[in-house]
């Protein structure tokens, strides 16, 4: 099997996973809903029925692109670091602190906030990465635990240092007007953050395809021992990749904050990091496919919300899609028989051709 038919096979697998997930959703809706056809219409056609709704897709796609890129970066080196969830959150706290506490001139204040967001996100992912490299501690375990540390640290900082005393909730003081990202399409909340996200896609794509660092990251993910034997400093490449991966989630957290909100309002982990795992998995960890997969996910989520507003089907149905897609794509054994049949066919063909 050459690389072409391999790609064909991978795409088939992704499509099949999404197809099966949608089929399960369809059956569920038919079973539980008293108005199944309206529900399906609301879910699948609903997102395209008005500009505002289409705008919703683009808005929710933006943070998903960042966390999808973040997961791609963290994962390509061969680590299962899940700190992008906490990183996204703590970055928005850091960006809030920068916006509220530092009195910087316009333009510079936004840059500073994005920088501190990226830094906070980067450090969040760096910690499990460091522990892995230096102490061989499982990054999966440390990053999951770290997410709670980051959540409560962030809430503590907001409540004690950033809270707006006049509000009846744990919201921060309002950001300066001039820091909010400009809206691009009137009647929607589509903002400049989407452009920053697409820029990030381009940067990560270039990193993987045209830099020595990107090559090393991918090689370590494929065989770290070969990389070491070839003279690559495996530990430092892993650490840099985790730093960049976390920083991407951090920029995502800050961009989401200034694109969609006027003040910090989270009371728990927003979940964009977890969604990033799904986005990156569907995109097969290829940066160039991340926008497409983020769009698909955002579309389904907006559709599920519309459905829950207009019909009797709750939006949690979306979680089913998420779970089924992840399970099916990560299941190695699926389509194995089919793949082997293809392999046998090609091999026989080749023997015939070569005599």
């Amino acid at each position: 099997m050459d690389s072409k038919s391999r790609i064909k096979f991978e795409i088939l697998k992704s499509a099949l996973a999404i197809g099966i997930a949608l089929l399960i959703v369809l059956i569920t809706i038919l079973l539980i809903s008293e108005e199944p056809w309206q529900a399906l219409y609301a879910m699948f056609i609903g997102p395209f029925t008005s500009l505002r709704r289409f705008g919703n897709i683009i808005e929710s796609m933006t943070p998903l692109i960042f966390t999808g890129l973040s997961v791609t970066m963290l994962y390509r080196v061969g680590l299962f670091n899940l700190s992008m969830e906490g990183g996204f959150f703590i970055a928005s706290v850091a960006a809030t602190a920068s916006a509220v506490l530092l009195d910087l001139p316009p333009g510079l204040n936004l840059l500073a906030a994005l920088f501190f967001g990226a830094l906070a996100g980067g450090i969040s992912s760096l910690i499990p990465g460091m522990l892995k490299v230096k102490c061989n501690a499982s990054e999966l375990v440390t990053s999951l635990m770290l997410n709670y540390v980051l959540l409560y640290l962030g809430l503590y900082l907001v409540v004690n240092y950033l809270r707006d005393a006049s509000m009846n909730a744990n919201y921060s003081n309002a950001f300066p007007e001039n820091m909010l990202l400009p809206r691009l399409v009137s009647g929607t909340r589509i903002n400049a953050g989407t452009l920053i996200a697409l820029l990030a896609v381009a940067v990560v794509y270039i990193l993987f395809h045209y830099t020595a660092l990107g090559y090393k990251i991918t090689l370590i993910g494929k065989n770290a021992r070969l990389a070491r034997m070839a003279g690559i400093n495996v530990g430092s490449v892993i650490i840099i990749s985790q730093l960049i991966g976390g920083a991407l989630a951090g920029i995502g957290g800050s961009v989401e904050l200034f694109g969609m909100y006027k003040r910090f309002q989270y009371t728990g982990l927003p979940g964009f990091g977890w969604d990033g795992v799904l986005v990156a998995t569907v995109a097969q960890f290829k940066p160039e496919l991340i926008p497409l997969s983020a769009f698909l996910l955002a579309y389904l989520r907006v559709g599920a919300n519309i459905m829950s507003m207009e019909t009797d089907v709750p939006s949690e149905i979306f979680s089913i899609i998420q779970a089924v897609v992840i399970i099916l794509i990560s299941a190695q054994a699926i389509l194995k028989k089919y793949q082997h049949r293809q392999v046998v066919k090609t091999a026989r063909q080749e023997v015939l051709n070569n005599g």
Partner: protein
Amino acid sequence: MAQDILKMEGITKIYPNGVMANKDVDFSVREGEIHALMGENGAGKSTLMKILFGLEEYDGGSIFYQGKKLDKAGSAEMIELGIGMVHQHFMLVDSLRVYENVILGMEPVKGMVIDSAAAVSQVSEIGRKYNLQVDPMAKVGNLSVGLKQKVELLKVLIRGAKLLILDEPTAVLTPQETDELFEQLLLLKKSNHTIIFISHKIREVMRICDRVTILRGGRSVETIEVKDATEEEISRRMVGRDVVLQLDKKPAEFKQTVLSVKNLNYSNQFGKPMLRNVNFELRSGQILGVAGVEGNGQNELAETIFGLTQGATGEVLVNGTNMLGKCIRSIRDQGLSYIPEDRMTLGVAKDGAIWENLIPDRVDSPNLKNRGFLSHKKITALSDELIEEFNIRCRNKNQTLAMLSGGNMQKVVVAREFSAAPDILIANQPTRGIDVGANEFIWKKILEKRDEGNAVMLVSADLNEVMVLSDSILVMCEGEVVAYFEDSSKVTEEELGLYMLGLKKQGVREVG
């Protein structure tokens, strides 16, 4: 004439990576004979036997045993039927005793516990019967390779096997141990056991086998009576052409010392000393062969010199600078390059494309870049050049490495390490598990390196390879250098065998 005990017809096997390992193979064995299965590495011998033993599924053909057709079954059923297999790599638990290994899975019990006394006496009895003398109470980890192989044979015989499959049983044995094994096999033949003997060493096959089936490129070529055949005939059928087993080797010209190892000591992660006070020198223009029974420190020596181990003491002087404990990058920058023992773990990334596997050591070099960014044009040019020069058979540089044959994968490793233009090449088992064509090619490349005035340290478990290629030979036993021969042509395989086994040892002065 004896009956066919086993018949395999039209066996076809395709691995998930698309390699067709067996193509319509016919193979039959008569009761009570020693039947050799020969072929180059990668000819499909091991695959065919794994299919017979139920370890691999097959995609076509049928198997008859004692006249009955076998359905696709696992190895448990095969053992039940009286088929036993001794694998090339021993399947033993090092931390258990001999008798515990032998009875594993069929333990005699007394109530709830294993009846050790009965087990020990069972094992000794079988050992006496077949003249396989091993102490049942010894820890397997402490046994020599030859004894471990006896344990494997015991394992098979105690389960009542009538048909024994031996997968390259002599690959890890010294000449003396091989002789002993052959006596035992002839004894087994007398007691009406049937033996399938997999090998690519023609001389051994001529010595003890009755018939030989030759595989080439996954197909069965022919089955012939050994007594009617000559060595040349068999080797021609194996390779499909006349092979020149002798290399055209120019006399060596030793120049200045480039690598000098002094008092090197190293213990592995379990605290077992693997290198004891190793001293030697390597000069440019010299191929220094390191011989020894596997596991006697040769691999650790190569890895320690290349910076792959930690905690070694002593000195590794490269052109006078001590490189012990330095990072691999700086060792490579000193002009060393390395062909690792196991290409799958250390040598290649099998999910990567060929080009990805050709550049890892030089990805930071400006030769592959254009204004700081990787230039795919330059990478393509380099890859195409190496694929051409090293005769890597593939569709193109983008093909995934896992799709290549073992020989071509090894050529990728060789292409990378040779094109790094090393002054000192450390080749650790450079031709293990590859076909004769690739083997010959790699030998020639190593000789070329030497003739260009570079130094080569060749570690190999294949005594023939050491004898043919090396200018000088160093023998290791239990982590020590036990012998050094400045001129390899002045020593015989048998003599090397004595040193490898630790039966002979040179004095300090001779070892130098």
